[in-house]
């Protein structure tokens, strides 16, 4: 469902390529972990899926559409089909848990009835049923990441992009988040997870793509962390 075709990236005002001739395909329902040192180019690669960055050369496909050719007007619709979670959660500080999750549906133009039905359901799935009126600053890191996850999933995206979602979390929260990601994947959502947490990679033992200096150096179907 995602395909990188000869993708290279050079950030403006920099001469060094961050991604070098990447060719990669991700199938539906896959759980892909992307590993590599900081600076290897993992985030840049993921940003191309939700069109925050465009390749300098090459194309990135979402099914048949070239993401890098999407017009600015079509971007919002594209992003609504993709769930994203990040190391810094990116919650709206002025909205409580319920509102943060509902926001993704409001943006997508869902009706109030749908929102009233789906939001409590997804909040329940991530285990924050009794915290839905708390504001982000009243929650622990792990709980905030669960809110972010709920928001990413509430529109039932085909693919979830997770860029170091456990980077700021303690081991227990990390594991809770990983459990949720696996569960989501089981229900049919493709998951692309970037991380440099060796433990995480080894315990889930799914497809591992190793990156170094802008290149894919290894792609194992049941890989281990080995950099």
């Amino acid at each position, binding site marked *: 469902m995602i395909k990188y075709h000869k993708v290279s990236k050079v950030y403006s005002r920099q001469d060094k390529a961050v991604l070098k001739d990447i060719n990669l395909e991700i199938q539906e329902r896959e759980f892909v972990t992307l590993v590599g040192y900081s600076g290897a180019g993992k985030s840049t690669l993921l940003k191309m899926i*939700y069109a*925050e960055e465009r390749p300098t050369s090459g194309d990135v496909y979402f099914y048949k559409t070239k993401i890098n050719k999407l017009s*600015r*007007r079509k*971007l*919002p*619709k*594209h*992003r*609504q089909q993709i769930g*994203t979670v990040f190391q810094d959660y*990116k*919650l*709206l*500080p*002025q*909205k409580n848990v319920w509102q943060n999750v509902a*926001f*993704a549906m*409001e*943006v*997508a*133009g869902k*009706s*109030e009835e749908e929102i009233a039905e789906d939001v409590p359901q997804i909040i329940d799935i991530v285990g924050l049923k009794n915290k839905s009126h708390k504001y982000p600053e009243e929650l622990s890191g792990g709980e905030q990441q669960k809110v972010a996850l709920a*928001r990413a999933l509430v529109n039932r995206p085909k693919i979830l992009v997770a860029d170091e979602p456990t980077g700021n979390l303690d081991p227990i929260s990390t594991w809770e988040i990983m459990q949720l990601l696996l569960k989501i994947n089981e229900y049919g959502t493709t998951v692309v997870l970037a991380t440099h947490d060796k433990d995480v990679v080894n315990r889930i033992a799914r497809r591992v793509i190793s990156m170094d200096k802008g290149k894919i150096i290894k792609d194992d179907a049941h890989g281990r962390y080995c950099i």
Partner: protein
Amino acid sequence: MWLQIKRTIKFAINNIAHNYWLAIATIGSIAIALFIINVQIANLMANNLLLEDIQNKVNISVYLKPEVNDEAGREIARKIESYPEVEKVNYVSKEEAFEKFKKDTANNQVLQEALDEVGDNPLGITLNVKARNSEDYPKINEKIKQDTFQDKIESINYEEYKGIISNLNEEIRSSQKITIILAVILSLIAVLITFSTITITIYTHRKEIEIMKLVGGSNFFVSAPFVWEGIIYGVIAAVISTAASYGYLQYIIKNSSDGSLLSLSSARFIKQFLETYLIRNWAIIILSQLLAGIFLGVTSSLISIRKYLKI
């Protein structure tokens, strides 16, 4: 679409409620901007009234010789009135002039007695000539002096007025110029303050804007709440500034003859301005205040949000 608009309004209200200090600062600066503009406009209007008033009072008096009779006097009046520069000639007959003179000197015993002694009316006909434009008096003066009836004229009082008239014209004109320049500068400063306040507001929201875009918010959806915010600020500020301006002008009327910000115009003219202009046009004034407030709020929102929408 309607649902989405409703949602953006909800977000705007939510934003204001969470940042009410910033909201107060923004409303305050828009209100001050409008207030300054209002006072300057009132000042200009009052100056215009003053100018009009002075021009209304100024005229040339043509004194005819005592032997000129009523018929000849009226003929001269008609001739002067036919000059294109002349708006009106006010004809004062010998008798009226005499009555007026007696009245004016009523408490001057000596003069009264002298008048009684003469018995006869020593005064001539007076023609008060009013120009359409106060700048035309010199021209009118010249025309009268060169017309065919010049031998029937005793005197024209223009010469003694000349200095005063041209001085006044000049003074009013230059004060008007200063007021306009001042108004433009002050208004510009006020508008800039508003712009920067709203820029700060949006800067504090830049992370949220980024998040909204990431979740798939369209540019409309992301920026509309800020536009609503601008509208709400503008409306509240317009109400405040209208009330404040009215209060301030009333205060000026009651407390001083030369208002501090209102240079040349005397309180009387501001009062006249308030009474005639403001009260007759209150709907237009309130509407224009609202529009100005909304315009300020919305344009500064749009300008400052633009750079965050690119991602």
